[in-house]
C-alpha cells in the first residue's frame, strides 16, 4: 500500500482572542485508495486539520507530506501548483462559477494546469460528467442546476486533473438524504473502481460509518483511527 498523505506531529494554535491549541500532535498516514472520514464535534479541530492537509492553511508546526513530498514550508505559489495538480476539493457549497457552463466549470482546473490541449480537456471533462451522470447538463449554465446536480458537477471538477486525493469539507452537508446517498455512492465508486483516495470531514454519522476508515477527533486529539 502506498502512502499518499502523511502528517507528523502537527500542532496548531489560534492566537485570537486567546491563545488556544486547536491541534495537538497529530500524526497519521493515509494510503492510496482509502475512503477516510473525519468526524468529531464542532470545535474538535477536524475542519482546521483538513485545511492544513489541503495546504491552504500554512500556519502550523510539524510536517505534512503529500504524495511523498514534504510540502511544509514551501512558498505559496508552489503550494498552489501542488493543489492544482494533486488535490481535488468538494465543499459543503458547490462554489461553481455561475457565469460558466458546467463543462467550463469542470475544465477550469485543467486549463490552469495546462497539461493537455483544450480539446483534450473538453473531452476529459465530458467523460467526468458522464461518470457522474450529468452528460445532459454539460452545456447548461451552472446556476440553472439543482443542488444535488451542482454538487456532482463540483465533484467532476475535483476529478478533472486526476488528483492523488479528493478532500471534502462536509460534502453532503447541504444535501437531502437522497442526494447525500448519491454523493456517497459516487465517492465509494471512485475509491473502489478508480483507486481514488478521499478524505472527507463530515457530521453525517451514517456517511462516516459506511466509509472505509474513520478518524474521530476530540479537543484537537485523534481519539480513534
Amino acid at each position: 500500500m502506498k502512502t499518499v498523505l502523511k502528517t507528523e506531529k502537527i500542532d496548531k494554535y489560534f492566537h485570537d482572542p486567546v491563545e488556544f491549541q486547536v491541534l495537538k500532535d497529530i500524526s497519521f498516514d493515509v494510503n492510496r485508495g482509502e475512503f477516510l472520514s473525519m468526524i468529531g464535534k464542532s470545535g474538535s479541530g477536524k475542519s482546521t486539520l483538513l485545511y492544513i492537509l489541503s495546504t491552504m492553511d500554512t500556519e502550523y508546526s510539524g510536517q505534512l507530506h503529500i504524495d511523498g513530498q514534504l510540502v511544509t514550508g514551501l512558498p505559496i505559489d508552489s503550494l498552489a501548483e501542488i493543489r492544482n495538480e494533486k488535490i481535488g476539493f468538494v465543499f459543503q457549497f458547490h462554489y461553481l462559477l455561475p457565469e460558466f457552463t458546467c463543462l467550463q466549470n469542470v475544465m477550469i482546473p485543467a486549463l490552469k494546469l495546462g497539461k493537455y490541449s483544450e480539446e483534450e480537456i473538453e473531452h476529459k471533462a465530458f467523460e467526468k460528467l458522464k461518470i457522474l451522470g450529468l452528460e445532459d447538463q454539460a452545456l447548461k449554465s451552472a446556476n440553472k442546476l439543482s443542488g444535488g446536480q451542482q454538487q456532482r458537477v463540483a465533484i467532476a471538477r475535483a476529478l478533472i486533473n486526476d488528483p492523488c486525493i479528493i478532500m471534502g469539507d462536509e460534502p453532503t452537508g447541504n444535501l437531502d438524504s437522497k442526494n447525500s446517498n448519491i454523493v456517497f455512492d459516487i465517492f465509494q465508486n471512485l475509491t473502489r473502481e478508480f483507486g481514488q483516495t478521499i478524505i472527507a470531514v463530515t457530521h453525517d454519522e451514517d456517511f462516516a460509518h459506511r466509509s472505509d476508515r474513520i478518524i474521530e477527533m476530540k479537543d484537537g486529539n485523534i481519539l480513534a483511527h
Partner: protein
Amino acid sequence: MNINYKIAKTYIFSNKKLTAVGVLGVLLGMSVYIFMNSLMVGFDRTSNTTVFKNTAHIRVYKDDEISKPLIKDSIAPYLIINPKIVPKINTIINPKKILQILKNDENVVIATPQVNTNVFYNNGKSQISGTAIGIIPEEANNMFDIKSTMVEGHLDHLIHNPNGIIIGSGVAEKMNLTTGDNINLTSSKGINRTLKIIGIFKTNNYNIDKIKSYINMPLAQQILKEGNTYITDINVKVADPETAEPIAAHLTELTGYNAESWQKSNETIVAAGRMRKIIISFVSFTILLIAGFGIYNILNMTVSQKINDIAILKAMGFKGNDVVRIFVTQAVSIGVMGVIGGVAMATVVITLLKKVYIGGDIGYFPINYESTKYLQGIIIGLVITFFAGYIPAKKAANVDPVEILRR
C-alpha cells in the same frame, strides 16, 4: 486563450451595465482630455502667430547705458554722484560683422537688419505720429510674413520703388488714402519726403495698424541723416520659438549687444499662456483621474461580488498573480474600450468645432488634431486604468481562501 483571460472576459460580459458605466467614464474623460489639450495647443499657436507678426523671435539692439565710473575704487564706489544715460547714438556699430556672426550661428534661421524711425504722416492738414520701419523687404517678409497681412498692393513693389511706402490700414483710413496716393513723411530730424503708397497692410490689431508703416531701409537711414551702416535693430528668427530664451542669452554673449527674446518682450502673453496651460492640464488630468476612480469602484465591486469565485480559484491552484491578471485584464479592457471611444469622440468634437467661426483676427476656432496630445492622453489614460485595476486586484489576490470557504 489563457484561462485567466477567459475568466476576465466572462466577468466583463456578464455584467454589461457595470462595464458600460466604466467605459463611458473613461470615454468622457479621455475625449475631454484630448479636446482640452488640443484646444490649448491651438490657442498657443494662434497667440504666437499674432505675436510673431510684429515681434521677432530675438531682437538684437543697442541698449542705453548708464554712465559708470572709469576707475573702480573700493573705498569710494560712486565717483559719479548723479549717473545719467550716456549720450550715445543707439546704433549697432559695424552691423555687417554682427550680422555675419549671427548668420553663422547654427541656431539662427534668418537675421535681418531694421531701422526704426519715429515720423509724422502728413496729408494736407491732417497729421498722425507713427513709426516707419526701414526693412529689407524680402528678408522682413520671411521674418514677419508681411505678405499675408497685405490687403492692397504688393510687398514686392517696395523692392523696385525706393520711394515707396506700405502703410497700416488705420493710417490709410484716417487720412483717406489708397494705393497710388502720395503721403508726406516728416522725420524726427526734420527731413521731409513725399512717398508713394504702394500697399496697405492690416494685422487686425488696431494699435499697430494706425501707426506702423514699412519703407526701404536706405530711405529710413536718409531721413534720419545717417549713413548706410546705421541700424537700430537686428531681428533674428530661430527654428523653434520656444528655445528663443537660451539662444538670446547666447547671442548676447556672442555679439556684445543686447539680445532680447520674444518671451521677454511679451511677458504678459507668455504668462497668460502659462496660466492657461496649468489650468487646462490640471482640469483635464483630474477628469481622467475621476474616470480612473470609476474603474476602481467597479473593480472593487466585482471583487466583493466574486469573492467566492476568487476563493475557489485559489483553492484549485490559481496563484496570486493569476488573480491579479484576471482583474487587471478586466480593468485594462474597460480602459482600452474607453480610450478608443474617447479618441473617436474627441475627433468628432474637434471636427465640429473646427468649423465654428469666431471672428476677429482668430477666424475659425483655433483647434486641430494634435497627435502628441492624442498619444499623451492614450498613455495617461491607460496608466491610470492599469493602477485603478491593480489596487483592487492586489486586494483580491490577498484573499485567504480558508476564511471564505470555512464559513
